[in-house]
């Protein structure tokens, strides 16, 4: 048995969730290799080789991998798939887009969004927006698995020294073309890995009012999240959405402001260690998962919250 992990990166560095996926992959089998497909991505291959427990890095560098088009990735991955029992990547938009394309061509029924490795062929995964957990056993010879990154601790970034093997590019796919990427740059921590997340919902009423949230996020060094309702209404961009069809977050502290707590939103945050809900509707379902509920008008509560935080002289970073 051996595991091939497909690295997610930006051609300069590994994306943080690759480290979480490494931890999960190690639990499947110790013979773990990482495949880096990129363009001018030497530094990525080097970072991958420095992760302890990684036995080998396969590095394929070609301009066709610059923008991570799944159709281009697939032919390169299939060239290496033969020698591995498991193919693994993160269950974020990168892995969700890529892995099924590989699995279908290997005639494998993919196991998506795994939150626990029970054995090399048996996994725990949430279904129905996390309202049920299914234990599933894959009976395919070769297994394609995507990992919910927030369910696994990140692997250490340094200490290893795996060999880096260069490999040839696969065939380029002619019918898909990258046009542009609109990345929202922010100095705040990434939503997926932040220690504290503060999210706003429909109760925020407009995008301007999100300033109340960002002021607190700045103070707490928190990431900003949102419910689908807030994104749909145009208060904030889609990369902030937490929930069944958005991002899953597991911070130490999750503060839900003006969010009623639909099942679909809870699916993205109810594993958080501490949950705070601020909502003027005392019957809102969000209170059923909150450790601390404050029934209040958010437009009064948020300025007071900031004021109280300013009074504290020690805020953990």
């Amino acid at each position: 048995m051996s595991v091939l992990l497909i690295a997610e990166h930006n051609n300069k560095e590994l994306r943080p969730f690759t480290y979480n996926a490494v931890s999960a992959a190690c639990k499947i089998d110790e013979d773990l290799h990482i495949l880096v497909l990129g363009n001018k991505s030497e530094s990525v291959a080097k970072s991958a080789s420095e992760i302890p427990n990684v036995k080998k890095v396969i590095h394929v560098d070609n301009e066709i991998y610059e923008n991570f088009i799944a159709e281009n990735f697939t032919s390169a991955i299939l060239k290496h798939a033969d020698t591995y029992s498991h193919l693994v990547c993160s269950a974020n938009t990168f892995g969700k887009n890529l892995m099924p394309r590989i699995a279908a061509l290997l005639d494998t029924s993919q196991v998506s969004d795994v939150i626990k490795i029970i054995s090399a062929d048996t996994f725990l995964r949430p279904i129905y927006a996390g309202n049920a957990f299914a234990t599933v056993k894959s009976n395919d010879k070769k297994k394609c698995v995507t990992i919910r990154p927030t369910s696994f601790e990140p692997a250490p970034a340094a200490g290893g020294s795996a060999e880096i093997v260069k490999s040839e590019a696969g065939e380029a796919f002619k019918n898909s073309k990258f046009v542009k990427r609109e990345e929202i740059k922010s100095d705040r921590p990434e939503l997926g890995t932040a220690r504290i997340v503060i999210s706003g919902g429909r109760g925020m009423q407009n995008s301007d009012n999100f300033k109340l949230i960002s002021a607190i996020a700045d103070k707490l060094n928190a990431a900003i999240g949102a419910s689908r309702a807030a994104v749909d209404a145009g208060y904030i961009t889609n990369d902030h959405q937490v929930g069944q069809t958005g991002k899953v977050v597991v911070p130490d502290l999750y503060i839900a402001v003006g969010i009623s707590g639909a099942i679909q939103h809870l699916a993205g945050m109810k594993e958080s260690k501490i949950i705070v809900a601020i909502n003027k509707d005392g019957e809102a379902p969000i209170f059923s998962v909150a450790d601390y509920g404050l029934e209040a008008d958010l437009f009064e509560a948020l300025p007071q919250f900031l004021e109280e935080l300013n009074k504290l002289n020690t805020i953990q970073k």
Partner: protein
Amino acid sequence: MKILVAVKRVIDYNVQVRVKEDGTGVVTDNVKMSTNPPDDNAVEEAVKIKESGKAKEIVAITIGEEKAQETVRKALAVGADRGIHVKVEGVVEPLAVSKILQKVVDKEKPDLVFMGKQAIDDDCNQTGQMLAALLGWPQATFASKINVKEASLEVTREVDEGLETIEVNIPAIVTCDLRLNEPRYASLPNIMKAKKKPLEQINASDLGVDTKARIEQIKVEEPPKRKAGIKVANVSELVQKLKNEAKVI
């Protein structure tokens, strides 16, 4: 241009799903069922493209037991021209679904295949990508905007970092995000008319696709329950609790 739209019947998104006591699955008896929400967006987008004059025919397809037909009827009521129901009992994994769709695509020869990006029951998020792979077609997943050009689509995709735009040549697969559009409601006259639209039934076994599960469901259980929390009286109590009790700030 011809568009094939795949729709799935799932437990309605408003239903609080309950796990069966014997651990074999979730309760579906007497539970409201509906079309998987992003599949409604897929149907809507196809109808909009047809209304703009860029498509001639929309075929809606579902795969599942007898009652799955309801989802095709709904698609017919909002503008699909005809329907296909591939009959099969029990759970059909995304790989088998995509193999069935492949057979239907071979026969129907659509230019585009649309479906939701994810079904809200198994949350797999696989079928569109798998079908694209089997057909050797490009895939535009998680689409929140589609611009139909001469021989291609320009698709804006919702990705973790923000938005990405790609161009895919037709024929292509698109999996739709909830933000792609606002699905319309079917009017009563259109619901009546939809009953007269053709709906072809095919048995999955006649397509020569093996639908046997490759993944064994060993058990289904309730997720761990959160301990009941407390209500705080005011903001300063909240901050004190977070600092001194939870120790998270």
